[in-house]
């Protein structure tokens, strides 16, 4: 391991390419199903995916729509004119002998996203994002003299988001990839399921002596096909250390493609790039260019959902912690049937309530939902939240009972007609009738003269004991706050 002072002499520079699978019913250029997750090999193929003679690509309009949304999600605007090009290379999972991609005129040019690493805000530039067709999947069974090709994935629509080399630490790289993930999810352009490879990252890392000055970059390595934020972070950290170690030993860095060993937490050399590949790009004559009108672009802009940065700014007035806000942002897209943010937003004009709901979500609801206790649909769940808040606000529920009530109801298929009636039947509703509680308080004071005397003498701890007795006597129904007030009042303090 390198020592911290050696590490401090170097600046790392990181750029990231991210492949995002777009969420379409059908493939980029063929009317064939796009969901290859569970399909048997080579069942989602047509003459187009197979690259048969005479087969021509036909652009899926939904891809253009989703790519346009992605442009806005990346702080950009879709280009009015973009086109497809052919990138040539031979590989058995590339049926045409070329990949259809966008070379010099991509649909997304320029853009930026903001990241936050331990309170340090930073803007990462987006160079470009282009639409392209995915290749098929090759597998090489161990010990066999053949390989297998599955073309189900061939022709799946991707956008490749290319960042500027604006990151300088593993933490920034991780934050950037998570931010891309959030934005793709919020824009609803991708399922962005990392497990299924809907989002894959290639990280370019180089190091140079800080004293050499900015703009003097070292030779970079590219570590391909990372499929988690953690892998991105670990791979970047590993590469920074590996490269510094080599340089410290007087060795040079070779430009190469590296792979990631997720178990060993290390990168390994895959291919040395001796000279640049010649892909012989040229405009695909089978596909007319994509021409977007101002009206179309405006229409897409108008349908953009609220993006994470907008949520952060809206929630900023509530004084929540960074972690709380991010927990809410993560949770919002974590579950298909549960929504947390709209209820907070609906109450932003009452910040104390909105903050209360936010806290309640972070501390109670989200852990419960994550524990798998929620069976209700989205609308029913929202109704449950609203009504529980109302009961809390009306002092009819203690927070302990509210949690219990939520757990009881969340596990149902359908909510009861009246949640308050249900809560009453379950005995969760607390007594806030002053006269009724007062009667119990008086009884408790009478039954516990010693404790009452202690309180009068200023032993505040004893109030807790008396309050507990009131709760016990009321079978937990009394509003504890009110009970305490009344005890104090009756004892004259």
């Amino acid at each position, binding site marked *: 391991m390198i020592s911290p002072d050696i590490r401090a002499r170097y600046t790392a520079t990181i750029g990231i390419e991210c492949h995002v699978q777009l969420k379409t019913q059908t493939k980029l250029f063929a009317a064939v199903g796009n969901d290859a997750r569970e399909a048997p090999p080579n069942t989602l193929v047509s*003459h187009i995916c*197979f*690259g*048969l*003679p*005479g*087969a*021509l*690509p*036909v*652009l899926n309009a939904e891809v253009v729509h989703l790519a346009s949304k992605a442009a806005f999600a990346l702080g950009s605007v879709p280009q009015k004119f973009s086109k497809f090009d*052919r990138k*040539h290379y*031979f590989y*058995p999972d590339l*049926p*045409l*002998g*070329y990949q259809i991609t966008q070379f010099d005129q991509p649909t997304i040019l320029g853009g930026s996203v903001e990241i936050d690493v331990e309170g340090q805000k930073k803007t990462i530039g987006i160079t470009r994002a282009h639409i392209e067709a995915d290749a098929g999947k090759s597998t090489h069974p161990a010990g066999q003299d053949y*390989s297998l*090709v599955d073309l189900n994935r061939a022709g799946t629509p991707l956008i490749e988001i290319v960042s500027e080399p604006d990151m300088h630490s593993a933490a920034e790289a991780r934050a950037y990839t998570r931010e891309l993930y959030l934005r793709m999810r919020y824009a609803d352009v991708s399922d962005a399921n990392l497990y299924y490879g809907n989002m894959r990252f290639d990280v370019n890392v180089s190091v140079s002596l800080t004293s050499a000055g900015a703009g003097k970059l070292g030779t970079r390595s590219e570590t391909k096909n990372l499929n988690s934020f953690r892998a991105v972070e670990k791979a970047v950290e590993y590469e920074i250390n590996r490269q510094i170690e080599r340089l410290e030993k007087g060795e040079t860095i070779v430009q190469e493609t590296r792979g990631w060993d997720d178990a060993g937490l290390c990168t390994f050399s895959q291919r040395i790039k001796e000279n*640049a590949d*010649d892909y*012989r*790009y*040229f405009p*695909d*004559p*089978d*596909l*007319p260019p994509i021409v977007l009108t101002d009206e179309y672009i405006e229409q897409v802009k108008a349908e953009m959902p609220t993006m994470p940065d907008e949520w952060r700014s809206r929630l900023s007035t509530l004084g929540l912690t960074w972690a709380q806000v991010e927990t809410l942002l993560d949770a919002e897209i974590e579950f298909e049937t549960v929504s947390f943010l709209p209820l907070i937003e609906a109450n932003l004009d009452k910040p104390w309530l909105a903050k209360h709901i936010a806290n309640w979500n972070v501390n109670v609801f989200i852990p419960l939902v994550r524990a798998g206790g929620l069976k209700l649909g989205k609308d029913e769940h929202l109704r449950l939240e609203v009504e529980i808040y109302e009961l809390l606000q009306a002092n009819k529920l203690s927070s302990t009972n509210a949690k219990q009530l939520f757990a009881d109801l969340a596990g149902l298929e359908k909510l009861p007609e009246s949640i308050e009636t249900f809560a009453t039947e379950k005995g969760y509703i607390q007594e806030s009738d002053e006269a009724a509680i007062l009667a119990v308080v008086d009884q408790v004071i009478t039954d516990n003269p010693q404790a009452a005397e202690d309180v009068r003498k200023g032993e505040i701890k004893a109030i807790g004991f008396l309050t507990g007795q009131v709760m016990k006597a009321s079978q937990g129904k009394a509003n504890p706050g009110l009970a305490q007030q009344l005890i104090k009042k009756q004892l004259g303090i």
Partner: protein
Amino acid sequence: MADVAQSVVQWLPIAEIAAKVASGELKAVDLVEQSLRTIAAKADYQAIIATTETRARERAQQIDADIAAGKPAGRLAGVPFIAKDNYLVFGADTTAASNILRGFEAPYQATVVNRLEAEGAICVAKANLDAFAHGGSTENSDFFTTKNPHDMTRVPGGSSGGSAAAVVLDMAPFALGTDTGGSIRQPASFSGCVGLKPTYGLTSRSGVVAMASSTDVMGPLTRSVEDAALVFDIFAGQDELDSTTTPRDPAGYSDIAADDTWIQGKKIGVIKEYMSEAGSLEAGVRQSVNAAVDKLRAAGAEIMEISLPSLPLSLAVYYIVVPAEISSNLSRYDGQRFAYTSPDATNLEESYSLSRGVGFGKEAKRRIMIGTYVLSSGYYDAYYKKAQTVRTKIINEFAAAFLQVDFLLGPTAPTTAFKIGENANDPLQMYLADVMTAGPSLAGIPAIVLPVGASDGLPVGIQLMAAQRQDRALLTLARQTERLVV
């Protein structure tokens, strides 16, 4: 050609054949048999790679039965046709006359074929071509060379040479060709039939083995302009399987009858660069074209000379742009999923190099190499990009010309059909056969060739051209010209 006349019945105009089949006067099964008999009788010309006889007979029986049952008959009911073997058609392999595709059975059909079949036409055979349509003589076929119907020692033209010869030899009332730089027009001129190259984008390329995507068009080869117009009318127009297609003329293309006054006052430009001395134009070709021009002038057309200064660069541009696209379009033939796979390969690299090395013929390899070269980084700007710039200039010059005149005309090729083997070892000389047809292909304009005379007993075709999407007007002019010349 006496034997031809004895063994076959001359075909009626296509509209009449379909009408007689619809009325029950003629049977589709008999028409198919007539086609198959003629194909067998004329086998020496080697115009045909394979027949689709089983499927053709079944379709003919079905069509006859449907008509007998009172079902509506299509506009091409029972009409046999022959498809160039780069069209994907059921009933026989689709080889594009290449070894690499030998044995390839199409799992889907070309849109053009589907549209013809929907109107009752019956494909009876697949015609020979230069492999992958690379050539102007059919000598580049990986299988055999088709003979010119008028002189068996000469080529029929190409690459749709099998289709042109088949029509002239009466094997079917019409044949389908493809034209990338002259592949319908030049064989029509060499073999003596009508050949239509429509506006780029009016015919679907779906299901046709691609040569150069930016200039490939589908068209008919026929015995008359009227037949060409009817067949084209059936398959012209947009296709959701080909994104480069455009809508058809709402007026259609088949109703092109016009009275003798139609030609009066029509402005027709004779392309100076095609008629110039420097073009090494054969005297007999020049005489035939000039004679036709005289008749058009006499009928009332206004004839003038038009110059397109960049047109002589067409061939150079064509042989950069087209090989570039070819090198890319042929990369799917990699021996991994279909078509020829070398059994001798011991690893992936060898599988590619041996499958392609053995499977592709000389001309395909030549064009792949040229195309790969002009697209390589470092050469792209000097060749491909510059060629596209000149192509734009040629397009603009054609557009400017059509502001002055309604139509352009010229010869189709500098010569009549050449001898088999004459140019076989000189690719550059062979490429010169496209010198007059490449320009209109690069510009995407419609052009039609029809026989207007003979030179030393060999047919000469005139090439008529119109502005993009003026196919209907072009067919009308061709019909008038045909009447004046014949």
